[in-house]
């Protein structure tokens, strides 16, 4: 009799321990798996979705600003010098080492060199846009989950859901987001999601006269983008922040911030 009670007790404890332990284990695994989903998109897996990214060949950029202009037209970005989904910066390194960075109206109207020729050590232009990070600080920060990474790796904003708190704008290290004064929600580059889902190129890529921007699928070994990454020593912006950016620059100079 005693033994049977003991057995029942043991069984009761075993079952309880399994339930409690299982729940704890599940709660431990769950955040890990949800974290893994974010990282996973950066891996070369067998997903049927493409994984969009962009290469920027700084050797080819002439700073015409056509990309920034086309983006504004294509995406109805307010035509004011405070709102940009993409813009171009001009870097001028002077002989004395001073670096001058300029981007009047995002480079849309072109650049005028303010430094006399004899004082210039080197000068180059750098297009900027959302880096579509796979560990995006903006996605991490959004309190309601209105900004998210699409299955094909594009950081998007749900306009019907964003509460307009600006926390994502604070969290973005690249200044790639702005508060749209018309929709009153966070706005940013979508890689022209409406175009790429129809096998078209983003507007900025389409208009670039020198093919300085290369858009493509990082999972497709034959894509132009993957070829570009193979042939060139590329870098991402602010790699120390561990954002896993998916915009890759060729010939990125250390002056670029």
């Amino acid at each position, binding site marked *: 009799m005693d033994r049977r009670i003991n057995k029942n007790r043991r069984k009761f404890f075993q079952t309880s321990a399994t339930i409690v332990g299982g729940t704890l284990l599940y709660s431990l695994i769950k955040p890990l798996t949800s974290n893994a989903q974010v990282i996973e998109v950066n891996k070369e897996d067998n997903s049927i979705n493409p994984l969009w990214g962009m290469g920027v060949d700084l050797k080819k950029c002439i700073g015409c600003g056509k990309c920034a202009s086309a983006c504004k037209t294509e995406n109805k970005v307010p035509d004011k010098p405070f709102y940009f989904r993409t813009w171009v910066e001009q870097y001028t390194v002077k002989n004395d080492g001073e670096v001058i960075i300029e981007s009047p109206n995002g480079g849309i109207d072109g650049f005028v060199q303010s430094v006399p020729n004899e004082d210039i050590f080197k000068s180059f232009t750098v297009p900027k846009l959302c880096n579509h990070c796979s560990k995006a600080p903006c996605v991490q920060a959004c309190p309601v989950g209105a900004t998210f990474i699409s299955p094909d790796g594009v950081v998007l904003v749900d306009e019907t859901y964003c509460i307009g708190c600006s926390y994502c704008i*604070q969290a973005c290290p690249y200044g790639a987001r702005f508060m749209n004064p018309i929709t009153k929600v966070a706005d940013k580059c979508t890689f022209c999601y409406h175009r790429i889902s129809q096998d078209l190129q983003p507007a900025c890529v389409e208009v670039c006269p020198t093919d300085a921007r290369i858009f493509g699928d990082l999972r497709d070994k034959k894509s132009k983008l993957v070829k570009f990454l193979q042939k060139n020593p590329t870098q991402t912006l602010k790699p120390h922040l561990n954002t896993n950016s998916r915009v890759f620059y060729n010939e990125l100079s250390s002056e670029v911030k």
Partner: protein
Amino acid sequence: MEEHYQHLYHALSQVDGYIYPNEIDLHWGLMIVLYPYITGLVAGAFILASLERVFNVKVLKPTYGLALLTALAFLLVATLPLVSHLQHPFRAYEILMTPNPTSAMAIFGFVYLWYLMVVLLLEIWFDYRLDFVLWSRESKGFKKYFYKIITLGINDTDEKSAKLDDKIGYFITVLGIPSAFLLHGYVGFIFGSIKANPWWSTVLMPVIFLFSAMVSGIALVMIIYMVVSWVRKVKIDMECLDTIAKYLFYILIVDFTLESLDQIHRLYEAEESFDIIKVLVGGKLNITLIFMQVLIGTVIPLLVIGFFQFYKPTEKIRKIIYFIVGLFVLIGIFFMRWNVVIGGQLFSKSLSGFTSFNAVFSGMEGYLMAAVWLILPCLILVFLLWLMPPWKKTTMHN
């Protein structure tokens, strides 16, 4: 809209160096300065109340009820500047409905509700329940009905129920201390966890916020205690006031040490961002940081109260000086919030230039609105003191 653009064109003309083109507008203005300020006052006032109840500093008894009601009055207003600053305020409830678990901001709604509902309201209710029953018998009109309803039908007045109230109240206060720490430490984390911003991103931020919150809350209750005593024409308990000042002094030392440590650490490590931060502190923030926060808000109060620990002038002089020191501390902590929130957005994340902050007078983000959010909790406090004056309580916890 045109006015907004004009504002931005003006800011554009004041840009110094290079900033990313989307950074001309400061996305967080005066309202977000007020949010940690008001939340800090709540946490600080509550900590003062718990000093008396949990840590048994009995000399602080005259301020216990006052501190709790102050915390409640300010907590009721704490979220309003935050919600009013949202571009879509009517979607604010989504933070509670579908919170993003990775967001430092998403948990605020829950921390706030926990603090308001579980800690403050329950503690005040258990503290006042017996008085509500007694007051409901002798009052008339609105007050009578209010007291009757607020007792929630629990009308026991025997000693046993009073003891139970006391026990549960004590338990909630104990629970309240980590909650107050959580409430404000968490607000610090909202800023401290932004790795994109080197001015914010420091592991000390939650701790600094916590101690500055205690400092501001204690200073506020000290001032309110003096004002309420003057209005009621009763004598101020000098022992109590001296003790509050003493705690203010100690916590201000910790706060100042932590903030100095943070700055010394930056100075010594001199990371990539240091060059721009050096210019920020010496230029754009020199009045609000060096003069308002450090000199007015910290050094002068520290020297004055520190001096009082060795030499005590007459009561009259002490009262006046405590009042002025309290005001100085409140101003200093306000500018501490300002320097964090506004200061962190003045320099570009390209670390190559500055934008400027031009506060407006009217509108949702203006000075007028800020004044409203600071005056409103004072009015709520006056109402609460009229409705449930702590000095008229017949019962008092052990």
